[in-house]
């Protein structure tokens, strides 16, 4: 069986130049990336690094100008397959207000299955199931615009889950949320990977969120600058900072200590690991 969910080969993309006669600037230049089924990949990069443009190629919202994108064996350039691709690769965007289409929560969640022509009783099952997965079932008859940002984003996730996608791309889903909303959304993403086996691609600015992934890809100037396990990528502190990014606070602390000659490990991605490593070091003495 083929374990590849997404295969990107030498992908190049540019937006048409606004001024005539001027050569357009590449937003993506020669990206190669293979994503395995059921994996959780975080994509990092500063604003303008091309990460959102890359994301929009994964469900044929944008089509390659050069190279190719293959999603579950389907070439995104084949227009006949567009709907098939989009039902398999769902996408959650940054601004929850601009992706909710209905004044009633359950009607909104039903939007994608309705578009796919799924029979009514089955839509009902899917909507209820998706709303329960994100913990918003009690709100099914509410008006979305009266909910909090975090709740709206959970509705948007339910709207994608109702397609029963194999892969979901999250484009900075927590950028506009408060800490509570952020925690809720991240918990749901974790559950989707674990319990539903969904392939997750998370675009984010938050290093703590990226640390939850199996793999971290760092974009810069339309190319992949780093690619590896979080423990591997986040320990390259100086490189990341040169790319306008930060590292999780715990890694930053360990890095500072090591600079001063304290012998502690660098790859402590969360508070618990960090505390343990520090305690071990300072108790040994």
């Amino acid at each position: 069986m083929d374990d590849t969910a997404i295969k990107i080969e030498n992908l190049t993309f540019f937006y048409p130049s606004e001024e005539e006669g001027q050569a357009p600037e590449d937003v993506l230049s020669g990206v190669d990336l293979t994503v395995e089924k059921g994996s959780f990949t975080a994509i990092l990069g500063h604003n303008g690094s091309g990460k959102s443009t890359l994301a929009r190629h994964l469900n044929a919202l944008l089509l390659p100008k050069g190279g190719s994108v293959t999603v579950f064996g389907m070439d995104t350039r084949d227009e006949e397959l567009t709907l098939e691709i989009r039902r398999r690769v769902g996408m959650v965007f940054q601004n929850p207000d601009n992706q909710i289409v209905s004044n009633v929560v359950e009607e909104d969640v039903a939007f994608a299955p309705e578009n796919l022509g799924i029979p009514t009783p089955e839509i009902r099952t899917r909507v209820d199931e998706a709303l329960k997965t994100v913990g918003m079932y009690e709100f099914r008859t509410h008006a979305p615009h009266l909910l909090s940002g975090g709740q709206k984003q959970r509705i948007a996730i339910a709207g994608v889950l109702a397609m029963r996608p194999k892969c979901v791309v999250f484009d900075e889903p927590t950028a506009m949320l408060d800490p509570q909303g952020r925690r809720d959304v991240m918990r749901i993403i974790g559950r989707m990977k674990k319990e539903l086996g969904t392939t997750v691609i998370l675009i984010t600015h938050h290093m703590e969120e990226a640390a939850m992934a199996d793999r971290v890809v760092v974009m810069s100037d339309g190319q992949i600058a780093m690619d590896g396990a979080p423990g591997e990528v986040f320990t390259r502190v100086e490189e990341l900072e040169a790319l306008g990014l930060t590292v999780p606070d715990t890694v930053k602390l360990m890095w500072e200590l090591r600079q001063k000659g304290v012998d502690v490990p660098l790859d402590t991605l969360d508070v618990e690991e960090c505390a343990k490593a520090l305690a071990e070091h300072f108790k040994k003495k």
Partner: protein
Amino acid sequence: MLKDVTLGQYFPGDTVVHRLDPRTKILMVILYIAALFNAKSWISYGVVLVFLAAAIAVSRIRLKAMLKGLKPVVFIVVLTSLLNLLYGRGEIIAQWWIFHITREGIKAAILMGARLVMLVMGTFMLTYTTSPIMLTYGLELLLNPLKKLKVPVHELAMMMSMALRLIPTLIEETDKIMSAQKARGAEFDTGNLIEKAKAMLPILVPLFLSSFRRADELATAMEARCYHGGEGRTRLNVLKMAARDHITLGVGLALLAGVIALAKLGL
């Protein structure tokens, strides 16, 4: 504040009136209006009024909400009644300067006023008890036969529901932009007309830009969720006419027939 304006004027509830098929309610309003305009006498007005009162009672819409909704039309009602009162024909009861009040004039004034009030209240019953989405859906289904004439019924309905969806968001946005410009010392309530119009620019420009941005993002999000027009689309909530709809429509037809019959009898 702008936020306080209730738009769509839908009062959620779970009464028989709320549960009726939106198509039934739209048709009922048409029948009701037809009956109202065929009513000529006290008796026929009474019949229509009893019907309206019953509908209001069953829907449990508070009378206060109904009366509040009448506020914007009070002026027109009073004016129409006054004109009918002062320019009536027939037996003169009282006279002053160029005005003369007649028995028929009094009757016409009361009935015309009542007709307007009842017209407004009847249409409110539709919007108060039907969610905008259901209303749009009902309209789409009723207009479906026009598809054969190449009228883009689905697209029109989708546009209407998108507008309904965006209205609360845009109101909130307008509020925010106004506050932000006020914080920079902008004043919207001073100066002459031209100055006032100019003062609106700092609100309108950002509002338009953000509406376009929103529309663009929303369109992308809809595409990502497999939207591709009305073709092959199914629905979560399918409208089905139930027994209560047939009975209600029967009552509506009887109302219209009754009023017409009364008119024929000269009542």
